[in-house]
């Protein structure tokens, strides 16, 4: 069964299934269409000498390249950029300046244009590291206009608004526009190949994880800064080359035309219309939009109707077809196909806990009982509010430690500071004797620190299996090119899913699961990291008692194998029956630390949290 994820249109990905049901998809209908299209485009100039159509295809190909590139960082990475025309402009000027000032055929400069555009994209990626959402989009707009201004004003280099004129090509007039045509087609081919490859690799799934939930992706070991920068470079390189070819085609480069924001808008529109997050959507979009553009210009009188059409179309797409043509079609067809079938999600979980042949967690240098995690003087201020105020505590290796306290005492904040999602205002965090409070979240994940969230955070668009395979235990450049789901990883993921009891849901979309089911999947997900320390944020919250008991069992089993836990919980019977030691946090500081029996009688704890008349009912019975 094909996963209904963003990769649905990408038919060349091996279905992530155990070897038994894996099938190499034959060159079926989809592949045939692609081949037919490619053949048509390649053969066209031989069949017809109509310059008008050659021109149209050249322009459409240019936008297709832009949209395919944009898709890498936007469709998959989730960063919408209004600055893509910057790459066109930079590529154009590189070719122009290179050919005019240094010499040589402009085509020779095209790869250089790609390089320069790539460097520019790197810069953009660096900027992206610090901004998100609105701020990022605004920045890309600013980036584009600023570049345009520089091109206009730096006239010693660029000749300003007078523009640069490139020499007319020297080939026989009988060849018309062929070199431009084929050059652009070749670049499109390269771009598609790269996008296809990316989607199949860890890089691609990491990008999608980033799009779904960037901070969560970081906490499961995805090196988000590097992914972002690489994503941008991939989005810019091909467009830069295409911009260079285009400049030669026009034989004239000027800053207003080359850095035009409407080009960026058109690229985004192509991607959105065809289907963001798919491989062929952007191409489809480009070959729909550019002819439409021509139509608007020729039949409907020029600039203003073009604006109306583009603006109107984009508004319609954003409002009514936000995922684009291809994914929406896919969804409709899948829905029709699976109509009347019962979903899996309501089924009850049962079955014994089978831990299977898991590799034990990485050997830790810390002796059992000695501190694995140490927090000293941790403070976090939000304006005038002190969420944590000089909190200090330790978590012994091999323990199941509880962190309890009233709402607002800073428990979740403490977790956020420990796992790196937030930076502390003051204080230190030590893991295994190394100071980690300066490390980014993914580095802490690589060190063996895992964390679940109070409100579960899974990558909703991915399947359960893809979610569990997403975490990365280390980072290496080679790993980026590794296959998205290798056989052994899939096997391991299945094992973990079986452990938590969710193996039947492996191909379900994570967003469709119930809260309790998501919690289980999230646990399996973090286990993939082979963590030394797992931070559980309210594992027993919002689930039924049977599942609570099961949760306790799983924690015990994992703990026996050497995993240390730090659990935030409000469910006292669960906590006090399972954990030792217990840490009590109140008003941002740790006020008590000790065995459960001791803590539940401590007057400070009773005062701050449990209440004078606290009586522990039956502790959750868990086999010791």
């Amino acid at each position, binding site marked *: 069964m094909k996963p209904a994820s963003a990769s649905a249109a990408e038919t060349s990905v091996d279905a992530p299934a155990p070897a038994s049901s894996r099938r190499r998809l034959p060159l079926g209908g989809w592949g045939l269409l692609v081949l037919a299209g490619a053949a048509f485009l390649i053969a066209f100039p031989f069949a017809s000498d109509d310059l008008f159509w050659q021109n149209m295809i050249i322009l459409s190909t240019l936008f297709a390249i832009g949209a395919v590139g944009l898709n890498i960082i936007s469709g998959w990475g989730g960063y919408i950029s209004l600055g893509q025309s910057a790459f066109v402009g930079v590529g154009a000027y590189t070719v122009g300046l290179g050919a005019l000032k240094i010499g040589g055929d402009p085509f020779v400069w095209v790869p250089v244009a790609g390089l320069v555009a790539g460097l520019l994209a790197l810069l953009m990626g660096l900027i992206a590291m610090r901004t998100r959402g609105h701020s990022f989009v605004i920045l890309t707009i600013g980036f584009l206009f600023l570049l345009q201004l520089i091109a206009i004003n730096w006239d010693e280099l660029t000749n300003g608004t007078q523009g640069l004129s490139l020499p007319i090509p020297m080939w026989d007039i009988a060849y018309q526009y062929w070199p431009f045509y084929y050059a652009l087609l070749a670049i499109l081919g390269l771009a598609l190949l790269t996008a296809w490859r990316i989607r199949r690799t860890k890089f691609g799934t990491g990008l999608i994880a980033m799009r779904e939930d960037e901070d969560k992706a970081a906490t499961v070991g995805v090196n988000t800064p590097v992914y972002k920068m690489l994503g941008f470079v991939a989005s810019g390189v091909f467009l830069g080359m295409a911009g260079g070819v285009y400049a030669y085609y026009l034989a004239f480069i000027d800053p207003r035309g080359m850095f035009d924001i409407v080009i960026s808008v058109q690229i985004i529109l192509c991607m959105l219309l065809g289907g963001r997050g798919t491989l062929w959507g952007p191409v489809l979009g480009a070959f729909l939009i550019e002819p439409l553009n021509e*139509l608007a210009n020729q039949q409907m009188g020029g600039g203003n109707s073009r604006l109306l059409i583009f603006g109107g179309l984009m508004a319609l797409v954003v409002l009514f077809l936000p995922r684009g043509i291809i994914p929406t079609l896919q969804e409709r067809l899948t829905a029709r196909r699976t109509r009347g079938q019962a979903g899996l999600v309501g089924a009850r979980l049962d079955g014994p806990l089978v831990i299977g042949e898991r590799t034990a967690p990485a050997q830790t240098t810390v002796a059992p009982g000695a501190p694995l995690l140490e927090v000293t003087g941790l403070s976090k201020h939000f304006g005038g509010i002190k969420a944590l105020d000089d909190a200090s505590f330790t978590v012994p290796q091999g323990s199941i430690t509880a962190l309890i306290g009233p709402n607002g005492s800073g428990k979740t904040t403490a977790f956020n500071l420990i796992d790196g999602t937030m930076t502390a205002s003051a204080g230190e965090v030590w893991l295994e004797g190394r100071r980690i409070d300066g490390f980014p979240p993914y580095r802490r994940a690589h060190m063996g620190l895992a964390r679940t969230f109070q409100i579960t955070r899974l990558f909703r668009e991915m399947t359960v299996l893809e979610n569990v395979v997403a975490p990365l235990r280390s980072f290496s450049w080679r790993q980026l090119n590794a296959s998205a789901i290798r056989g052994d990883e899939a096997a391991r993921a299945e094992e973990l899913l079986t452990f938590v009891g969710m193996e039947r849901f492996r191909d379900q979309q994570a967003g469709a699961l119930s809260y309790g089911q998501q919690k289980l999947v999230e646990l399996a997900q973090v286990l993939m990291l082979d963590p030394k320390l797992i931070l559980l944020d309210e594992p027993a919250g919002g689930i039924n008692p049977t599942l609570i008991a099961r949760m306790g069992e799983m924690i015990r089993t994992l703990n026996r194998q050497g995993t240390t836990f730090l659990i935030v919980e409000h469910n006292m019977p669960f906590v006090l029956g399972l954990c030792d030691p217990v840490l009590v946090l109140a008003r941002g500081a740790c006020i008590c630390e000790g065995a459960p029996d001791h803590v539940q009688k401590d007057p400070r704890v009773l005062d701050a949290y449990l209440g004078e008349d606290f009586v522990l009912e039956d502790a959750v019975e868990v086999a010791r």
Partner: protein
Amino acid sequence: MVRKWLVALCVVLWALPMLVVAGCGSGDDGGSDGGGGGSSSKQGGPPIKIGASLPLTGEFSEPGKAAQQGYRVWESTINEGDGLLGRKVKFTFRDDASDQNTVVSDYTSLISRNKVDLLAGTFSSLLNIPASTVAERNRMLYVEPAGGAPEIFDRGYKHLFFAQQATADKQGDVWAEWVLGLPEDKRPKTAAYPTLDDPFAVPVLEGIREKFEAAGIKTVQKSTYPADTSNFDSIANAVKGKNPDVVVHGATFADGVGFVRAMKKVGFKPKMFFETSAPSFGDQYIKGVGKDATEGVFYAVSHTPEAQTPGNEEFVAKYKEMFGGTEVPEDAADAFATAQVIQAAVEAVGSVERKDQTKLADWLRDNKVDTILGPLSWDEAGRPEGEFLIGQWQDGKPEVVLPKDVATSDKIVEKYGG
């Protein structure tokens, strides 16, 4: 099974717009304007098709429309007379919306789909540069009415010609020479050069500035403002601060008006004032800046309705008959002159075949054409070798003051503001 549906749908979606455009494309004379006169082939064959893309909408729409009017006047005149090579002419217009990509598509389409016999140029340097490339690649004659940036002619094109008297860098020459010819006490000592960042305005100023600096007139202020500047107060203030004797302002229209008004606002009046483009807009200009501010403003212009050049009187009359009003825009005159140039070449060579286009270009290079702008002749690269007219506003009326032999007014107001 799912995939097959997807495939079918995608093919349809992809082919549909192509078919639509193709269908529309073959009938695309619907987007154009045929001119006056029936296309009856009474006279020696089917009408000669001339294709031109013009900015009928967008930033340059006003001059673009004026140019279209100029072409139409010529078309009517020809068709009411003996025709061209005994055949009627028919213009096909396209709107490039002041956009470069569109102008490329337009000329490509005119050449390959409409299969026009002749091309006529578009308005503005920015549009003519890529358009002329298309023409040059296809070895077709390309005469342009407006687009005097010198770079256009540095590319070694063999089919490109400019139908005005001089390229932008030479447009101010006559005036500059007059200034330098003034007696010592009347000559300005200092000059300021604020300009719009525009491929036309900048070369005009550079041409003047070179001459002035060589003769010892000190440049005290020089600034370039971007196209979207709307507030000229600061710029005028900066110019005022340097107190130049003469201000040479590179402008198009709106900024020309804006700057003059800003000078009034900041209370600055140079001894002499030269401005490009804007003052040639007649009624609009004086309405924009007010009569007092026009007095003594110098500008360069290519056409004057009073000139005694061949065909001018008829042109002016015909224009007013077709389009009304009391003024004839300069851009319309330039377009008419363009058509005259094309006409002269075609009549001399006797053909409009594609293979003879280069012969048309060669003939123009070796010959002079009499137009309503005066005689035009060109150098190797298509640069015209004539002299621009210099105009001045006097007593609320635009007059031609230089060269003396075509002047409409005997006096030259030496001080700005009278």
